[in-house]
Structures are given as structure tokens and as C-alpha cells.
């Protein structure tokens, strides 16, 4: 009897404790902290005369593990020496980065002071005020920033409805990488139009010898969604209508999806499972003749440690559909300051230092990516990176909005990521795939 009642009491206690816990910890319905920049005030208080005003401050930077991580690793010690600010780098993969940052923002934990912000997160970050608008800082320090030197398209890395939620960090142009040896052998020039791209992919495809026309991203998820959007852009279409509402399943987009599917006939058989790294492997191992991709990977093809096509590669402007006003896909990363950061001033120092024209040259030399005209036109850098003129032209006609930077981007990407992949493996027709993506997006936005 005694045992039974004590067990009962135990259970009762457990329930009471649990209830208490829920009561205490019920999250207060939180209004998003209005991210009115407190920056200006702080600045006036800071001893401007001191040489290292922020010495001893510690910053944590969450960075995507793109090539530019190497540049961060090289430059951060220099910055620490110069300013006395300590910067801890936390390199994270794409999905991890997005999720960790979101958790940090939503929970207002302020673990990260600085973060690399993918161009497509801009709208979402702005709508939620996750990062600090940098306009006050920029206005205050405009004399030191050489703002006019930053390529206009670079501003899409963080600008949203007139405010800057991230500062341009690394601009990527979508370019065509091709095997110049293979093209020379056949007496071909790199394709200028999408129609030629398909034609050449077909012509150069040689599966008997394990050589294929083109490498593409086909893996379910962000990979296939983003690659499809590249082709939508290159055919002059969009997945938003003129009012900015999702219009995924237009006849034009269905046609483009079918074109995209045809290209896969001339891609390595595993391409429907390619993520960015496998596509890179395919190109670097010399399995394919062409690959569209981000310009930041270009330097790596000349590195014999990771590439077996050293000296056999060149880049050209990405082909666009015949008769279309040339526009080139633009992407990359901005760098933002957490709205919950207590070290916004020091974090801004870092951004300012990193994006200054002088440091930008070192940034490029250690696998960073350009944002400034002066960098792209720099004679020394042009000597070291002979493909810079292609980049400059791509940047000048860059389109940073082909992947809609709207707050709902991740929903569109996920829907397309599943259905386009399903189309490519023959589970759906192109029309069904886009109809379903459209329906999923509409349902999620309700």
C-alpha cells in the first residue's frame, strides 16, 4: 500500500513540476525588437581619438564554407593586429548556417555578431529585422567607404526596399566554364546563346568514352531549384509576375523546364543527384565539356591539387536565349550585423576594413570574390586573373533578382527543389511539376 501511494505521489509531483515549468517558460509573445539603429549615439560617445577604440572586443563571425573562408582565415589575424578586436570565425555549411542563424535571431540569443548573408535571404532578413540596417553607419562614414566604387549590382547583396541589411561581401557572376582544349579540337567557339548551348552539349556528349556535354545541378533541394532558376533567367523569364507574386507555372516556364530537362540528356547520368560539390568534381575531373556556375570557383581550376583540367579551362559570358537583352545571373554573399549584437560598432569596423579597396586586393588573392569596380579593373589583379574582364561585364549586366530575394524565397526554393527533381527523374511532367510547385507555394503563403 505504502509503495503504491508513493508512486502516485511521485507522478503527481512530476505533473506539478511539469506544469510549473510550462508556466514559467511560456514564451512571452514577443514583438520583434524594432531594429532602430542605436549606432549613431554610441559612436558619438566612443573616444574617437583613441587609436584602438575597440581593443579587446570579441566578435563572432558565422561564415558560409565557400571559398572565401580561406580569405577570412588569412585576413582576420591582420585585422586583429590592427584594431585589437578579436574575431572568432565559425565556418558552417549552407543548411547549418541558415538554421543556426535563424535560431540565433528568433531566440534573440545574439551568439553571432557578424554573419555572411546569402543574397536570397535579404528579403527575409529585412522583413524580420534580423540584421541591423547599416544606413546610419554608411551615412556617417561615407567619406571612408568609396561607395561609388562598389558595383551597382553588388548592392543586391543585402539591399532591400531602400535599406541595407547586409553589406556587399562577395559577388558571384554566373559564367560558362568550358574546356578550351575540347572546343579548339572541334573548332568551336563557346556558345553565345542557350540554343547553341544545347546544340554543343549534344555535339560534345560522348558517353561511350565517359565524357559528357554539360554538368548541371539535379539534386533534390536547393541545388536543382537554383539551377532551374538560372535557366529561367537566361531565357528571359521569371518565377514572379509583374506584381511580385509567385507565377511559377507559366507556359514559358514550363517550356524552359523542358529545355532544362533536355540538357540533362547530355549530362553525366548521375547529374540528377548532383549537389554543387559533385558538379564541381565532374568538371574538375575532366568529365564534362561545359558547366555554368559561380565565378568564384574559377581560380580553383588552375590548382593542380584539386583539378585535373589545369590550363584547359576558360570562362565566357553565360549564354542567354536568342534575341534576349543580355542579363547575367548574379549572386553571392553580403555580410550583416546581428540586430541583437552588443558589439555593432566593432562589427562595423570589421566590415569597413574588409571591404576597403586596399584590403579587397588581398581578399581576392586569398580566394575571396569581388564587389568593387576598382578591384575588377585593377591591372595587377587582371594580370593574375585574366578572366576578370568577363566578370566585369557579367557584373555590369548582372541580375541579382533572378532568384527572388523576397521573404518567402525558402518556400519557393523548397517547392521547386522537390518537383523539378521529380520531373527530371521522370516522376512528373514539366507542367505537373510546376503546377504542384505553384500550389505548394500558394498554400504555404496563405
Amino acid at each position, binding site marked *: 500500500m*505504502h509503495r503504491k*501511494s*508513493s508512486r*502516485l*505521489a*511521485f507522478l*503527481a*509531483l*512530476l505533473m506539478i*513540476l*511539469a506544469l510549473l*515549468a*510550462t508556466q514559467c*517558460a511560456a514564451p512571452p*509573445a*514577443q*514583438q*520583434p525588437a524594432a531594429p532602430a539603429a542605436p549606432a549613431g549615439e554610441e559612436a558619438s560617445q566612443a573616444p574617437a581619438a583613441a587609436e584602438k577604440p575597440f581593443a579587446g572586443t570579441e566578435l563572432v563571425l558565422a561564415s558560409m564554407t565557400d571559398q572565401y573562408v580561406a580569405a577570412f582565415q588569412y585576413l582576420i589575424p591582420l585585422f586583429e593586429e590592427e584594431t585589437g578586436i578579436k574575431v572568432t570565425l565559425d565556418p558552417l555549411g549552407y543548411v547549418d548556417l541558415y*538554421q543556426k542563424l*535563424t535560431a540565433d535571431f*528568433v531566440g534573440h540569443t545574439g551568439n553571432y555578431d557578424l554573419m555572411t548573408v546569402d543574397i536570397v535571404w535579404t528579403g*527575409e532578413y529585412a*522583413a*524580420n*529585422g534580423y540584421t541591423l540596417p547599416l544606413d546610419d553607419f554608411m551615412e556617417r562614414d561615407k567619406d571612408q567607404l568609396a561607395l561609388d566604387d562598389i558595383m551597382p549590382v553588388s548592392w543586391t547583396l543585402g539591399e532591400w526596399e531602400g535599406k541595407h541589411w547586409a553589406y556587399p561581401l562577395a559577388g558571384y557572376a554566373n559564367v560558362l566554364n568550358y574546356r578550351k582544349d575540347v572546343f579548339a579540337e572541334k573548332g568551336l567557339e563557346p556558345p553565345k546563346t542557350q540554343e547553341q548551348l544545347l546544340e554543343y552539349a549534344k555535339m560534345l556528349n560522348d558517353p561511350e568514352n565517359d565524357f559528357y556535354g554539360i554538368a548541371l545541378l*539535379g*539534386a*533534390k*533541394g536547393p541545388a536543382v531549384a537554383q539551377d532551374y532558376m538560372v535557366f529561367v533567367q537566361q531565357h528571359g523569364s521569371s518565377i514572379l509576375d509583374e506584381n511580385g507574386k509567385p507565377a511559377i507555372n507559366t507556359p514559358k516556364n514550363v517550356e524552359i523546364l523542358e529545355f532544362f530537362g533536355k540538357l540533362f540528356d547530355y549530362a*553525366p*547520368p*548521375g*547529374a*540528377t*543527384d548532383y549537389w554543387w560539390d*559533385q558538379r564541381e*568534381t*565532374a568538371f574538375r*575531373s575532366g*568529365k564534362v565539356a561545359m558547366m555554368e556556375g559561380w565565378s568564384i570557383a574559377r581560380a580553383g581550376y588552375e590548382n593542380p591539387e584539386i583539378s585535373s583540367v589545369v590550363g584547359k579551362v576558360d570562362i565566357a559570358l553565360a549564354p542567354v536565349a536568342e534575341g534576349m537583352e543580355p542579363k547575367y545571373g548574379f549572386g553571392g554573399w553580403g555580410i550583416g550585423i546581428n540586430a541583437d549584437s552588443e558589439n555593432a560598432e566593432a562589427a562595423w569596423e570589421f566590415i569597413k576594413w574588409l571591404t576597403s579597396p586596399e584590403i579587397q586586393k588581398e581578399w581576392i588573392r586569398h580566394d575571396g570574390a569581388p564587389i568593387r569596380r576598382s578591384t575588377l579593373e585593377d591591372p595587377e589583379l587582371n594580370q593574375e586573373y585574366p578572366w576578370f574582364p568577363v566578370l566585369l561585364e557579367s557584373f555590369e549586366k548582372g541580375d541579382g533578382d533572378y532568384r527572388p530575394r523576397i*521573404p518567402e524565397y*525558402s*518556400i519557393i526554393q*523548397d517547392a521547386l527543389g*522537390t*518537383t523539378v*527533381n*521529380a520531373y*527530371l*527523374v*521522370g*516522376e*512528373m511532367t514539366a507542367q505537373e511539376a510546376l503546377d504542384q510547385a505553384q500550389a505548394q507555394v500558394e498554400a*504555404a503563403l496563405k
Partner: protein
Amino acid sequence: MKRLVQALRNVERHYLLLLAPLLVFVVAIAIYPLLFSVSISFFKYRLTDPTQTKTFLGLANYITAFQDEQVRKALANTLVFVFGTVTTELTVGLGLALLLSAETRLMQFIRSWLLMPMAIPPLVVGLVWRSLYNVDFGVIPYYLKLLGFDLGRGPLGESATAMAAVILVDLWEWSPLLMVIFLAGLKSLPSEPYEAARVDGANRWQRFIHITLPLLQPVFLVGLLLRTMQSFKVFDIIYATTAGGPGTTTTVLNYHIYTVGMTFFNMGYAAALANILLVVVAILSILYVMVLEQRQL
């Protein structure tokens, strides 16, 4: 209520004191999140919603879940996965146990090596197999192609083979666990029935069918329930190999919940889905506990 209070008083104080740290721990780690997830499953609650509004929906999330085409597909996929992994793993596990039950040094050696896959985190297992399976660079397709097989988009890329391919990964990782369970079962079998059977002239196959299998039945049930529960919750292997693809061929329920919760941050709906999964797994675990207790009697 009065009785409860009375009962509480009856408890010796120092018991409570000793239990307190554990209680706090359990409440913080298990009970509170559970209650929280139940409570938010009644709301429309999106973490990334700029206005951070929570709208009370009642049971709407659960009703949507049962009507949601994607959830049904995911549930169907989960059932295929569970059936595929559990049946093959039980068979292979039993086979390995019978094969390796002898107490020779060689057998002990092989047995301990066979435990390796279990010690590797499933995420790593998934990544390793993803590269092994890769049709353009991977080892497995390389040899299969030499043997003249046409692999198309590769084991993970073809809708027809993707599910079987991930089941094989799971089989590789978890069969050893069942082997261990069956080995323990085999060791604890009484020897008398075998002696009696031998006297009666039963051959090995007859002894296996009529003695070993019936006697192993409770062990079988333990293995079955344990693996069914784990298979229902599978996530890491799918995440690392196919991400639920191609299309939605290998999107299991837990992966779908992850997408809803961690990509869309649609927490209310994700919580409702997770609770449905929880009920399924809870029923299985109650069965499991009942079986275990029965064995001890």
C-alpha cells in the same frame, strides 16, 4: 485531490530530495519540450513570421495533416522503409547469429568486427554510402558497370531503386544489432530439447524450425519492436543520402517534419506531425515494454 495531497505527505522527504536533480532533469529535457510541442501544435505558429503571431487553430493542424497529400506520401514511404528494413534486418541478423554463434576465436573476431557499422554515426554512414553509390565517381556503380549493369541515374537517382538503396544502407548499419540480440537469445536456449530431438532423429533443419525458432520467438519480438520503432524515426540516413529524393520517393515522415519545421519554420504544423509520429512510436514502445516484462515473468 485530497488523496493526492495525503499521498504526497506520506512520501519520505529524503527520497524526494534525492530524486530532485533527476526530476528537474527529466522535466527540463523530456517533459517540458513534450508539453510545449503539444501546446504549439494547436496554433498557427511560424518562427520566421515577422509579426510573431500565434493564432489558435484547435485541431486544425491535425486535420490538415491527415488530408495533406505530402504527409500521406511520406507516411506510405515510411511504412515501406520500416517494412523493408525490419524484415531484411531480422533475417540477416538471425542468419549472422546462427553462422557466427560458435565460440571459436575466429568467430569472436569476426563478430566484433561486424559491430563496427553500429558504432559509426548514421550521418557519416549516409555520407559514405552516398559517395559509394555515386554513379559517376562511386565504387559500387564502377564495378556494377564492369559487370554490364545499366545503372541509369544511379542507385540513389532512380526512383525505382532509391528506396531499396537506402534500405540497404540501414541494413548494413543495423543488422549487427539484431545479430547481437539473437546471439544473446541463442546462448540462453536450454539444451534439453535439442538432446531430446537428436534422440528422436530430427535433422538440423527440423531442429531449427521446430525448436530454435519457437524458442527464439520472444527475442524475435524484442528485435522486431526495437527496430520498428527506430525505423519509424529514421532521419539521418535519408538526410545524408537522398534528402528524400528523387522527387519524394524516399521522403519519410520524419524527414518531412524536418522540412516543415526547419526549412519553413512552421512550428505549429511540424509539432502536430511530430506528435502523430510520437503516438505511433509510443504505441510500439508500450508493446515493447509489455513484451520485455512478460519475458521476465
